[in-house]
């Protein structure tokens, strides 16, 4: 022993931990993309007040927002197979990662739906009327006019939620998926040195979130291109 904090061990372990980052990336990217698309669909269905479906979606959203990640993970991983077993469906062969992807996607969808709902409502009514007056169907109006503008407005808030999801992935080891966090714990069990490994994990998360924030800023800039120019020309 001797040293309280072994910098050499920290540096040496970093690549090993980084080797598990693909799990974190997979969960984040999958749930961000699928979740945001699903969220957009939920937001539109709620705004259009589709009977039966819209109230159910409201309950879904308040459930996803009202319970913590970990509880949702446990409910999905332990609860859902139990319920399905009663109706004769076995989920034995389903890998834990599938549950994780489902929970994180639904989580992203619930938050994304609320963010997008407010930005969809912020698209000027006149533009929606113009689209309708040209004979567009509702679907065409959303796809061509409303959603592109809504996504642009929602981008900062959506990126924020994605960052929340990245941090949430540090809980997935609880249902038996080995990610960077779980790998650090396993290695600490062998070496009896955990602090070095947790610093590594912190650095990896920090880098990931920094990169996501950069991507977000890039997307915002690219989309608000026209607005910036307009401000310039007015000045």
């Amino acid at each position, binding site marked *: 022993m001797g040293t309280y904090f072994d910098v050499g061990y920290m540096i040496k372990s970093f690549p090993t931990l980084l080797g598990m980052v693909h799990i974190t990336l997979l969960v984040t990217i999958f749930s961000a993309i699928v979740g945001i698309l699903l969220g957009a669909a939920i937001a539109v269905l709620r705004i259009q007040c589709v009977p039966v479906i819209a109230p159910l979606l409201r309950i879904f959203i308040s459930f996803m927002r009202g319970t913590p990640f970990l509880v949702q993970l446990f409910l999905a991983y332990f609860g859902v197979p139990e319920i399905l077993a009663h109706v004769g469906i076995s989920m034995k062969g389903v890998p834990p990662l599938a549950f994780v992807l489902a929970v994180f996607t639904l989580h992203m969808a619930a938050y994304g739906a609320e963010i997008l709902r407010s930005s969809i409502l912020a698209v000027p009514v006149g533009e929606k*009327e113009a689209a309708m007056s*040209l*004979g567009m*169907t509702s679907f065409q109006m959303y796809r*061509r006019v409303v959603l592109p503008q809504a996504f642009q407005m929602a981008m900062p808030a959506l990126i924020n939620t994605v960052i929340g999801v990245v941090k949430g992935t540090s809980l997935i080891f609880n249902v038996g998926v080995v990610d960077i966090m779980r790998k650090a714990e396993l290695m600490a069990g062998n070496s009896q040195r955990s602090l070095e490994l947790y610093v590594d994990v912190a650095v990896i998360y920090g880098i990931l979130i920094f990169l996501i924030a950069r991507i977000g800023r890039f997307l915002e800039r690219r989309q608000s291109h026209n607005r910036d*120019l307009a401000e310039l020309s007015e000045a």
Partner: protein
Amino acid sequence: MIKLEHVKKSFGDQAILRDISLNVPTGSVTVILGPSGSGKTTLLRTINFLGKADGGTLFINDQRYDLRKASRKEILAVRRQTAMVFQSYNLFSNMTALQNVMEALVTVQGRNKADARERAAELLTQVGMKEHADKYPAQLSGGQQQRVGIARALAVNPQVILFDEPTSALDPELVGEVLAVIRDVAKNSKVTMIIVTHEIAFAREVADQIVFMEGGCVVETGAPQDVLVHPREERTRVFLNRYLGGTTLRDGAGI
């Protein structure tokens, strides 16, 4: 031919349109005049199903549409034969001027992009906006936006273009350029137009028919010369007096 019969609408117990009937021959320009709150804009929006009437019938050529009970399919059919120019322009702010004009051609009519772009460029040239084709609405002045709005309406080759106070939101010095475009379209395109406006001198110049509305009723209909210069109804006279500041339009007087 566009024909409206017995159009009625009320908000709560306040009647906005009381039994309006109107006949607009193909290729003609009808201008609707009237004080604010007379139901002009509501009538225009009703034709496009942007507001639903409580009753009434719309005829486009010989096709009959129930303004209250039209199905979704019928509503789309009407909207695809009509186009609207809005008071606040309502250009799609996520698209350039050219893309705004192309949009309905590609998305609604399913034309290929190259054709649509060519047609859109032609129309932008017609409204004098060719050099601004790649600008976004936020980079254009109100008058320029409205000219793009007119090109967008022309693009779909509609049976009728509905102008909802196209110059009311504009700075006075920009009104002229938009009126010039509308005048040009009226003269050269032979498209049927219904225009709601407060520009009386302009109305006299372009209209084949003037409709004077007040309190949700049509008070007087006729040729510009008759309605504006020799109004039959007292209410028309009062309105014209107020708008023209005491002067009256005399025969042949240009304003």
